[in-house]
């Protein structure tokens, strides 16, 4: 495109665009339109069926100034993200490390840890409602064995979000799988060299494993965060009447969007909220992306 491109660079550019063309075509033909449409809708009073008048930034003003639950839902979501993302990343790396030692029964363990991600929908949420029952629930029964009186998880506003975090950590199979794949891709030579130098297990983990899997850690953090910001199905099913109770403690950002869009048909407002969330998540991602130069190990030296 630029004048300064050499013939080779042009050839490279053409190849690059050719390789990414499936996505570009998909974006132009299928997914991009609706996405841009929702951006436009965020500046209108769009209700999906009868109106779509341009109202400027009125939706955004309502969001910041007039919506009594907007900040609460954002706060709840941030709290959840801050708790869930580190917890699931650390646990997934830990499990993958254990699995990578290939002790007896590893294939079975691997299967077991992946299983929860396979489950989805109402059945899982129901299981957790039962498990978290304060008296007869299994979680508190186990805690009682250790002399701990567990909280009444889903009924106590202070414990509802940790309950959902627990569910998320329980289903960390996908992350675990990614770490496992990437750990296995670390060259054996590196470890052998370290062994000769007499490095301990922890040293090897810190000096070799972590840097080598850092691209995947980066990926896991970003996608986990994106996913956690969009938490909503759990809250819809697990709060007693789907409105984020008790005391609005499960009123997450996306639950609020969903309610606005589908019970009150304020899709314009819902779109505005969605795009504001995109701005937040994108900002965090770009900061991460910039910071990743300092800790993510790549062959190219760039991301």
């Amino acid at each position: 495109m630029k004048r300064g491109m050499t013939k080779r660079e042009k050839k490279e550019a053409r190849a690059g665009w050719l390789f990414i063309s499936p996505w570009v075509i998909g974006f132009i033909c299928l997914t991009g339109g609706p996405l841009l449409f929702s951006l436009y809708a965020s500046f209108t009073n769009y209700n999906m069926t009868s109106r779509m008048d341009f109202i400027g930034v009125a939706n955004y003003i309502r969001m910041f100034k007039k919506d009594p639950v907007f900040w609460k839902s954002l706060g709840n979501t941030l709290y959840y993200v801050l708790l869930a993302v580190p917890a699931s990343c650390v646990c997934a790396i830990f499990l993958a490390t254990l699995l990578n030692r290939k002790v007896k029964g590893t294939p079975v363990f691997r299967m077991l840890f992946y299983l929860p991600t396979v489950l989805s929908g109402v059945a899982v949420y129901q299981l957790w409602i039962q498990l978290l029952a304060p008296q007869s629930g299994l979680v508190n029964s186990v805690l009682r064995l250790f002399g701990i009186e567990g909280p009444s998880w889903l009924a106590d506003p202070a414990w509802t979000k940790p309950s959902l975090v627990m569910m998320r950590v329980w289903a960390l199979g996908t992350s675990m799988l990614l770490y496992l794949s990437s750990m296995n891709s670390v060259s054996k030579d590196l470890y052998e060299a370290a062994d000769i130098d007499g490095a301990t297990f922890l040293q090897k983990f810190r000096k070799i494993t972590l840097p080598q899997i850092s691209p995947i850690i980066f990926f896991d953090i970003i996608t986990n965060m994106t996913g956690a910001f969009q938490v909503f199905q759990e809250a819809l099913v697990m709060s007693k009447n789907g409105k984020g109770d008790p005391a609005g403690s499960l009123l997450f950002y996306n639950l609020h969007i969903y309610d606005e869009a589908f019970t009150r048909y304020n899709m314009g407002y819902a779109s505005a909220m969605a795009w504001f969330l995109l701005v937040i998540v994108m900002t965090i991602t770009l900061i991460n992306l910039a910071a990743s130069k300092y800790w993510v190990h790549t062959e190219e030296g760039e991301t």
Partner: protein
Amino acid sequence: MRGTEHTVIKGGLTSRKRKKRILDTVCFILLAAAALTVLMPLWFMVSTALKDMDEIFTYPITWYPHNPVWSNFKDAWMSADFTGWFLNSLFVAGFAILGGVLANSLVAYGFAKIKFPGRNILFTIILGTMMIPEFVTMIPQYVLYARLGWVGTYLPLIVPQFMGSAYFIFMLRQFYAGIPNSVIESAQMDGASHFCIWRKIMLPMAKPAIMTVVVLSFNWSWNDFLKPLLYLTDTARFTLQIGLKIFVSQSNTQWNYLMAASCIVLLPIIVVFMCLQKYFTDGMNLGGAVKG
């Protein structure tokens, strides 16, 4: 502690072996404990599947079925056209795997290993598409597919799979990033095209990552509920996830049937995982290739 130091001095090899054994044992205990916590909910699922409704309604909850009703599995499955829906799900998931592997590995290669203007902006847009909740674009997306005449067919479930997904593109790009550029450069020296490099070098080297894509895209397609709900109109074309919901009604849920059917629905994913799991431990063997 002094004891171990002593053995270290005495004979390095045996102590290292012993140390390894201790570490392995600790590792095993930790894994077993984690496995138990994972298993508890699953156990509860299976046990509910085996109860009759009377027992489900008893209080306090029973943690194992007192009179296991094995026929629940059969009854749940036969209560609707689950076999047909199963095949439909398999059909859709097959395309999801094919499309997922093909499109994403190509696109990710483009982003990871080829330099071209606009790459970073495009990649940021790809990340952005992950960050908008599905239900905000759902209505315009539906209208678009309706205008294309795709509603009532499998096309809205299948075609987008061949256009790449942000998650997989990002993921594979991260995996490719670990493959040294020198490998590609030396292949280019030999006159290989990017397509050739992708096909002959990247795909084989990134096998664990590709297999991860296979497992995940199968899993997600298999569990997808919203798209089949929106785009399928004929009961005979439904997928399993819509089918499962027949046990959930506004005031009553047939928990035993729901759990029994859910258990059966899990099986194919378990099989796929079992078949492919050896690849996750194979490793990409990147280092070897560099030094080679």
